[in-house]
Every structure is written in structure tokens, then in C-alpha cells.
């Protein structure tokens, strides 16, 4: 009796879910964040369910299987994707089409799994170590004190430390492509000296980013400026939420995400979140880092370029914006904190513009270029990938600084060619 009572209590708590975001999975992820039935967790090990959203590139299928195996069994897999469900999971995975139902359905599936009405997913990867734990000699994996491959696991050898010349062991590992610290699809091989990043090799580039539909429409036809600007504000606010979450302010991040769906023209950004909370981002790890130098600077676009003082903005060419008195905001430093401030300022400006545009019923005029939240979007050249800039920016930073810098860039290329034909679809 007591057990069922405890179980009933447990069933009222939200279920932790690890999100695997593929191409065009962004909207589903936002819906998952808002669902009261689930909490989105940072590590698959803490999750009860895996939510696959959007389509995963074929080269990352193995990684998907590994992440699936990292969710402790018994687990639930939710499939919210245009991809076919893998053969092994077809009996157990729950397929969800409506993104706003995702959280609810995951919770129900976990409850029926716990009640024994449903069986767990099978393991997609064999549950065995990459190399057997078989010792040699007197029960050890290797010989001698250092180096070698004890138990088939290569040991570190000392190399020069970046900071002070002591020869210490590096730690090499790879993260991605589904790490919440990186854009979806990005994988990197990291060499750490203690807490300092000594090497950053991009193993795979992030998936192309799918923008809110209104930005694609604006390329072809006139759309209400108010809609464009509200979508822009919501986009920036969600990214600010990610920066807050990264720096330990998860509750404020959730607040921002909830506000981002119900933005109204003319709202002040200070109504959404305490101004001092956003200002405090100036003091977090890496706030002053991540400045792009030299010839690479030209590759920055949109808010990132404006955060460094370059006032390029496609909206300046649009008569509707000119009529509203639009002037781009710029920052000077071009650092991580400046980009966050730029997002904040642009979101605030977008909300003001939206109010003015709603009053004037302003419509954009398609001129071949739309200023998207990540840079200028034209038919011929949508914003391209800049993840190859990261190694030069990140090497030498401490881990937490590097993660802040990563969270202040839009690295992914913008999806364009297939959007118009296959609305929201994948391969």
C-alpha cells in the first residue's frame, strides 16, 4: 500500500528528459522547455526519457545510439521527427507529432513504464566496455608506472602546460553532437590541461539552423514588421535564457522562456526579467573573452558583428524600417558580454519597433535581403557556418569561459534551400 502511495506521489513530479535536437528540432525543444510535465536535463544519465526532435544526420546515427544507451534503463524514447524510427525501437518508442503534446505524452509513457504496462526500450548499443577490463600479470592493466595502454585504455603522457610551463598530463575527450553546451550537431575533440583548453578540434559542424518561418516568408512577400520583430525578440530572449542557464540562473532562464512565447508589442524587456540579472552576466566567466580579431572579424554577421561596432543591418535598406526611425544598436567591445548585451538591446528594440509597427500597420518590402536574428539572410547567401573560428578563440581559455564564449555565438549556418519546398521536413 505504502509503495503505491509513494509511486503516486512520484508520478506527480515532472519527468527528466534529455533532448536530442536534430535539423528543424528547435521548435519542439522550446515546446519541451515549456511543458510542466517534464524537466529538460543536461545529462542523459539523469533522464528517464530521450526525446528525439528533428532529423538527425546519418553520420550521427551512431552517436544517437550511444546517447540512447546512456539514459538508464528502463527508459522511454519519444520520437518527434520526420525520420523513421529505428527498427529496434519501433515496438517501444512513442511517436509524437504535435510538439505541444510531447511533454505530456512522455510523462504518460514513463508512468505506464513504471507501472509495468509497457516494456523498456532495448539497448541499441551492446552494454559492454570499449575494451575488456582484463588485467595482465599481477592483476593490473599495464606494465611500468606510466604510459602504455592499461586495460586497453591509453594513458596520458605529460606535455607542456599552456599557462606556466609545468609538464602535466592532458585530458583528451570529445563532446557532441548532442551536448547541450554546443549547437545541435556540433562535435569537438577537446584537449584540456587541467581546466584550460589546450586544443579544440571541430569534428563535425553544427546542423543548419531553422529560423522562425516569418523570416523566410519575408524574403518572398511582404510581412507585418510587428511579426518579424516579435519573432526576433523571442529568438534573442531564448538565447539569453540559454546564457543564464549556463551560468547557474536556471530559474530566470525558465522565466524568460515562458515569456518568449507570449511577447506583446511594446513590452519592456525589464518587465520580462530583472534588469540586474541580465547585467550580472557581465561578471560571469568569459564575459570579457571571445573577441574575434583580424581577418576573421569580417566573417561575423548580424548581432555578433554589431556587438563589435559594425553597424551593418539589412533593415536599414527597408523603407518600412526607415519610416519607423530604425537605427541599429551597436556595442564596442565585441566580447562575449557585449554580444549578450547586444541580444538584450536588440530584443528590447525589437519590442519597441513592434509596437510602433503595429500602430502604423507597417509591412516589410521584400528586397532580396532580410535581417534575421543571426545575420543577413538573402536568397543566394544565407548566413554560413563559423564554427571553424572556435579553435582560435577557445584555446587558452578556462573551461567555463569557453562555454560562455560558445554560448554567445551563432555558429550554425542557416537552413535555406530546402525550407521553402519541405516545410519543416528533413531528408
Amino acid at each position, binding site marked *: 500500500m505504502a509503495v503505491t502511495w509513494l509511486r503516486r506521489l512520484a508520478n506527480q513530479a515532472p519527468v527528466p528528459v534529455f533532448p536530442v535536437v536534430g535539423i528543424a528540432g528547435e521548435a519542439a525543444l522550446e515546446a519541451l522547455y515549456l511543458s*510542466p510535465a517534464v524537466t529538460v536535463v543536461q545529462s542523459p544519465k539523469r533522464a528517464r526519457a530521450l526525446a528525439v526532435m528533428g532529423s538527425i544526420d546519418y553520420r550521427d546515427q551512431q552517436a544517437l545510439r550511444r546517447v540512447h544507451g546512456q539514459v*538508464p534503463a528502463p527508459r522511454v524514447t519519444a520520437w518527434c521527427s520526420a525520420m523513421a524510427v529505428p527498427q529496434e525501437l519501433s515496438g517501444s518508442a512513442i511517436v509524437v507529432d504535435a510538439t505541444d503534446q510531447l511533454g505530456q505524452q512522455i510523462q504518460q509513457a514513463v508512468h505506464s513504464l513504471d507501472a509495468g504496462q509497457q516494456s523498456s526500450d532495448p539497448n541499441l548499443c551492446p552494454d559492454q566496455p570499449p575494451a575488456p577490463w582484463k588485467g595482465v600479470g599481477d592483476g593490473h592493466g599495464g606494465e611500468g608506472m606510466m604510459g602504455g595502454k592499461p586495460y586497453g585504455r591509453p594513458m596520458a603522457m605529460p606535455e607542456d602546460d599552456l599557462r606556466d610551463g609545468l609538464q602535466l598530463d592532458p585530458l583528451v575527450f570529445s563532446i557532441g553532437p548532442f551536448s547541450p553546451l554546443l549547437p545541435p550537431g556540433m562535435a569537438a575533440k577537446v584537449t584540456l590541461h587541467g581546466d584550460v583548453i589546450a586544443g579544440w578540434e571541430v569534428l563535425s559542424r553544427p546542423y543548419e539552423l531553422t529560423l522562425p518561418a516569418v523570416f523566410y516568408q519575408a524574403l518572398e512577400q511582404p510581412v507585418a514588421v510587428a511579426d518579424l520583430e516579435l519573432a526576433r525578440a523571442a529568438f534573442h530572449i531564448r538565447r539569453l535564457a540559454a546564457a543564464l542557464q549556463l551560468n547557474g540562473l536556471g530559474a530566470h532562464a525558465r522565466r524568460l522562456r515562458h515569456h518568449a512565447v507570449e511577447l506583446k508589442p511594446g513590452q519592456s524587456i525589464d518587465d520580462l526579467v530583472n534588469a540586474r540579472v541580465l547585467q550580472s552576466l557581465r561578471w560571469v566567466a568569459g564575459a570579457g573573452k571571445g573577441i574575434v580579431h583580424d581577418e576573421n572579424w569580417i566573417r561575423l554577421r548580424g548581432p555578433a558583428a554589431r556587438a563589435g561596432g559594425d553597424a551593418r543591418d539589412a533593415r536599414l535598406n527597408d523603407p518600412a524600417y526607415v519610416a519607423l526611425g530604425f537605427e541599429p544598436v551597436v556595442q564596442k567591445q565585441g566580447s562575449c558580454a557585449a554580444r549578450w548585451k547586444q541580444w538584450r538591446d536588440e530584443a528590447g528594440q525589437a519590442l519597441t519597433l513592434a509596437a510602433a509597427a503595429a500602430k502604423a500597420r507597417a509591412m516589410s518590402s521584400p528586397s532580396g535581403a532580410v535581417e534575421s536574428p543571426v545575420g543577413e539572410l538573402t536568397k543566394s547567401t544565407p548566413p554560413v557556418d563559423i564554427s571553424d573560428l572556435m579553435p582560435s578563440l577557445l584555446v587558452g581559455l578556462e573551461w567555463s569561459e569557453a562555454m560562455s564564449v560558445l554560448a554567445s555565438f551563432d555558429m550554425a549556418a542557416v537552413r535555406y534551400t530546402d525550407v521553402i519546398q519541405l516545410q519543416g521536413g528533413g531528408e
Partner: protein
Amino acid sequence: MTSTLLIASACTVLLALLVGAYCVAAIDGAITARVTGQTPGNPLLIPLQNAARLWHAPHNETETPDRPALRLAPVLYLVLAAMGLALVPWSRDFVPVDLTTGIVFWGAIEPLATVLVFLKGWAPNAHFPLLGAYRYVSLGLSYILVSMFVLIGVALPAESLQISAVVDTQAELWNVVRQPLGLPLFLVVGLGVSFWGPLNFIDADDLHGGAASEEAGRVQLLWSTGRAAMLLAFSAIAASAFLGGWHGPWLPGPVWLILKTLAVVVLLVILGHTLPRVSPERFLTIAWVILLPLSFLSLAGAGVEALL
């Protein structure tokens, strides 16, 4: 001490630990709800629901963990919190453990807790936990010194290392007035020892949750309980050392102690939800260049006051 009193003390401490850990979780939930503007359910039930969920959740098995450390560290951390709570005087006559070196004993609990938090990151045998633990410990060593100096400062006017004597000296004037630097410095230590908010270097989101990234089920439940209990024990010690402990008009002593402890808990939880995690590099500078000299200053002030 008679055996009745012994049993009463043990029961009080355990009860206070469990109820207190629940209160910390409930306060945290209430403040989170206030910040997010979302009320997901009855705030009084949420901690119990989460605990029940973790109780039933499957365990995450890592490859060749350090099993003794994995199992012992969360339990011992909880035990340390209980030991800290046992030192707190509830009234003039009722002190569960009235050690003559209570202040020093609390000073020993803090580094021992740091050791256990290191084991939290060491035990699972995975790199993100280890990175978190390593970072936590190397920064943690810098504020433990601050805690020592601040605690010696409150022992000076009492001319005793006994916590009950420290509380007694605050009958007229609380230490928070006498040594205004003491409490803020001590609160920094509290955030660190219970790895909370701006000083949560081990379970941080920039490491996928750090040491917590490999925890699930009951291990996670134990650690979150231990963490809440440590925050509570710390707040109770802070209330006794700086806010006059059980002293106060009208209400009985234990009630005052509970009120003051919860006030410190609320303050710490709000700080945790307001301040972003400090940059490790900057925190190292802050700890050694600002906090440590300030604690010296506080101690010197206390010394001068004791001599006058």
C-alpha cells in the same frame, strides 16, 4: 548526560535534519516558483514528489566506479551535516552536543565536507565529474581559511570555543552588530560548502551538471538531501554565531533559533537564484585579495574589542 537526554538529543537532531532539509527544498521551490512565475503544483508537496520520483528512478551505473567512495561519500556528507546541527544550542539548557571546542569542530566539518565533495566527483570515474570536483576543491581551499578567521572572531568575545558560550555573549548585542563583516564573509563559505548558487563549481551546468551528470536515482536523492541538510546546518551555525542563536524576546528559545535559521536559509537561497556562478578565475582573486584580508580585519577588530 543521562541516557534519556542522549536519546532526546539524537532524536531532535535527526528530526531537525529531516524536517529542515525538507524546509530548505520547499523554500527553494517557492523561490524558484516566484522567479519563474510558474506554479507547477502545491509548493509544499513538490520536494516530496521529487524525492519519491528519485527513490523509484533507476540507478546510473558508470564504468568501474570507485564503489566505496560512491556509496559512502553522500552518506558521510549527510552525517557531517547532522554533526554540525548537533553542535547548535536550542536553549540555555538544551545543547545536543556541547563540545568545548565546538567552533573548531565546525571548522573541521567544512574541510571534511570538501573532501567528500571531491569524492563525489572522483567516484563515478568520468571526466566531467572529475573536472567539476577538481575545480571545486581548488577554489574551496581559498574560502576555508576565511571561515576559520571569522569563527575565531566570534570566539574572542566569548573567550571560549564552545558554541553555547558564543551564544551566551550575544544576550545583549548580537555578533552581527559587533562584527559586521563576519556574517557576509561566513555566508560566502556557506554557499561554498553546500555548493550552492554562485559557488556551485561542481554540479555546474557548464559541465553538463558536473559531478551530478553521472548521478541518478537514490544517489542523486542522497546528495540533494545532504546538500540541503548542509545548508541548513550551516545556517543554524550562522544563526548561533552571529544572530544571537536562541536569544530573543517573547518567544521561547528554540522558536527563535528556528526563525533565525530559516531566515539565513532564505537569504542563501535567494542569493543562489540571483547571482550567476562566479568566474573561477575571478573568484580566486576575490577570495585571496578581498575576502581573506577582510576576514583578517574582522578578526583584528574583534581582538581590539576584546582587549578594550
